[in-house]
């Protein structure tokens, strides 16, 4: 006699025990510490912090370890943890013009106050496997220079002064919080940027790339890309003034895009903006391009029907935790639905056949 499949509970426990063994790998090799991941896989840690929307390098490193290096799984762990944390309030806007820059490059001016600072970049490395790293990780000391005494001004500020670039409306409004209110469209720019900064790097990269290849092309110059640390300040009501609650590393990208103008308005450049946790410059540049493409309506451009212009398309599909969950849920049993389709298709085929036979 057929006995219904049981034992799901034991199967789940056994699967997870096996997973834990696989995560550890060969016990003969040394175990990775969270500190090793934090220090030596820092860009993975940065991505997990950015897309997990939680600035905590140790937790991100722990998530990477637990997720066996699957970064989307690690981001998921961080998001699920983050959502349990209380929200105390909003910080003051971070002052990126006071950023202590590790890296600062401009593609629009050969030199500007603050200078071009390459910083720790993969740019101009030759992508040759360094077999020495298989044996020995020792590195020679890099040369040191003193930090700049003064702040590094934004390149955009120089274009602003000449009115060459479209101004942004300033506002003291607290921006909406995507994690506390449901996304409703149309979204304002603050909400779009919030969504983009935690969006999947690969998705945003693909969207940005599509604009470069002509799907709503809007040629972007990187006016400035800067990476460094900024202070986070928060007003404390009990104190009556703002105090610094910490310091975070950010990547900021500002692009100068094609100008617009009309018979009444002289032409002006337009801008795109990217700001992402950690050292995440591919993401920040991509974000700036997608931000710019999404601004077609406010800038009076035509809807070219390009994916990167479609706010609903971009914002509804950019979150990798939503996407991967829904994609992978098709592994779950669907036998009830499939059964109903089986019956339907058998019935339709029966009817089609009998009509066919009757006609003969």
């Amino acid at each position, binding site marked *: *006699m*057929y006995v*219904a*499949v*049981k*034992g*799901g*509970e034991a*199967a*789940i426990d056994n699967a997870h025990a096996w997973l834990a063994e696989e995560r550890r790998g060969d016990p003969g090799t040394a175990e990775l510490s969270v500190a090793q991941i934090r220090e030596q896989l820092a860009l993975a840690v940065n991505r997990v912090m950015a897309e997990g929307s939680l600035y905590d390098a140790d937790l991100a490193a722990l998530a990477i370890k637990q997720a066996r290096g699957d970064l989307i799984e690690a981001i*998921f762990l961080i*998001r*699920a943890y*983050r*959502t*349990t944390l*209380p929200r105390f309030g909003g910080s003051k806007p971070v002052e990126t013009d006071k950023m202590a820059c590790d890296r600062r490059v401009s593609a629009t001016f050969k030199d500007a106050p603050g200078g071009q600072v390459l910083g720790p970049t993969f740019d101009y490395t030759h992508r040759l496997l360094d077999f020495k790293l298989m044996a020995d990780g020792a590195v020679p000391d890099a040369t040191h220079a003193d930090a700049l005494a003064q702040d590094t001004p934004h390149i955009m500020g120089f274009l602003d002064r000449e009115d060459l670039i479209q101004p942004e409306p300033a506002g003291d409004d607290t921006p909406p919080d995507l*994690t*506390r*209110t*449901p*996304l*409703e*469209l*149309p979204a304002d720019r603050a909400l779009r940027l919030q969504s983009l900064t935690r969006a999947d790097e690969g998705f945003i990269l693909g969207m940005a790339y599509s604009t470069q290849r002509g799907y709503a092309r809007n040629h972007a110059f990187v006016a400035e890309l800067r990476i460094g640390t900024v202070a986070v300040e928060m007003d404390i009501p009990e104190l009556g003034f703002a105090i610094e609650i910490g310091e975070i590393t950010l990547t900021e990208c500002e692009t100068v895009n094609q100008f617009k103008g009309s018979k009444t308005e002289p032409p002006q450049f337009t801008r795109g903006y990217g700001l992402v946790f950690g050292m995440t410059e591919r993401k920040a540049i991509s974000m700036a391009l997608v931000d710019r493409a999404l601004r077609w309506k406010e800038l009076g451009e035509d809807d070219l029907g390009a994916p990167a212009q479609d706010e*609903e398309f971009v914002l*509804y599909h950019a979150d990798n*935790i*939503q996407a*991967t*969950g*829904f*994609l*992978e*849920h098709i592994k*779950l*049993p*669907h*036998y*009830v*639905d499939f*059964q*109903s*389709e*089986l*019956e*339907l298709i058998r*019935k*339709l085929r029966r*009817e*089609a056949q009998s*009509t066919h036979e009757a006609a003969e």
Partner: protein
Amino acid sequence: MTEYNFAYLDEQTKRMIRRAILKGLAIPGYQVPFASREMPMPYGWGTGGVQVSAAVLTPDDTLKVIDQGADDTTNAISIRRFFEKTAGVAVTEATSDASVIQTRHRIPEEPLRDDQILVYQVPIPEPLRFLEPSEVETRKMHSLEEYGLMHVKLYEDISQHGAIATAYAYPVKVEGRYVMDPSPIPKFDNPKLEMAAIQLFGAGREQRIYAIPPYTQVVSLDFDDYPFEATKADHACDLCGAEDSYLDELIVDDAGARMFMCSDTDYCAKRRAQGHVGAQAAEDAA
């Protein structure tokens, strides 16, 4: 698991979800946006249902979780364990003993009572989604009660296939106003949507909650000359002999022989305990 609040979510979040539920009950079939939280299970795996259950559960409740009608499917087990751990509530497999039932893809065979709540996991809450991909457009269509597109789709089915070619997630109209997706239940279950229990629908990824209050009119869309028909496999359960229950079809040998058994495992087990015998059990006894 004391480091988390009762039923995992914090009280502020539960309050937000309860407001959405109340609004949903006040406007039957209307999709209420809510600030869905990231849960410790993936989107698409029941996060909407889990949040709704978390918001309605009290320490005195008894919870039942089913997936495909069965209590022992892996994801049902996983969700049941989650609430055992985070809420410490009593759990059961018996439909009649449960005060809250979370389900995916089925409505239990046993009629529910007015002291029970049925919580559905919903993947795509928008019944018009595959006719119109834009949420902005579909919300407009609902507010204008503009459902012509749906009728055209059903009509095209009939002209192409001779029948309405929707077997599950069959659209319904609630209390004469909103067209609603009943979640991917087989259309066999549609007539049960008019029931004594409160029905709550949670779509986590899509951030929507909707509801059917007790004894609300729920009509499956159809045409006078092509009336709605609830269908199931034309068999009886091979284990308990039930002829009125929805059946799973199993392939039992390499030659592709089939057997049929109740998808509702509790219903089937109860019937067998009462002495009902299906074709296969009778064969084995002989």
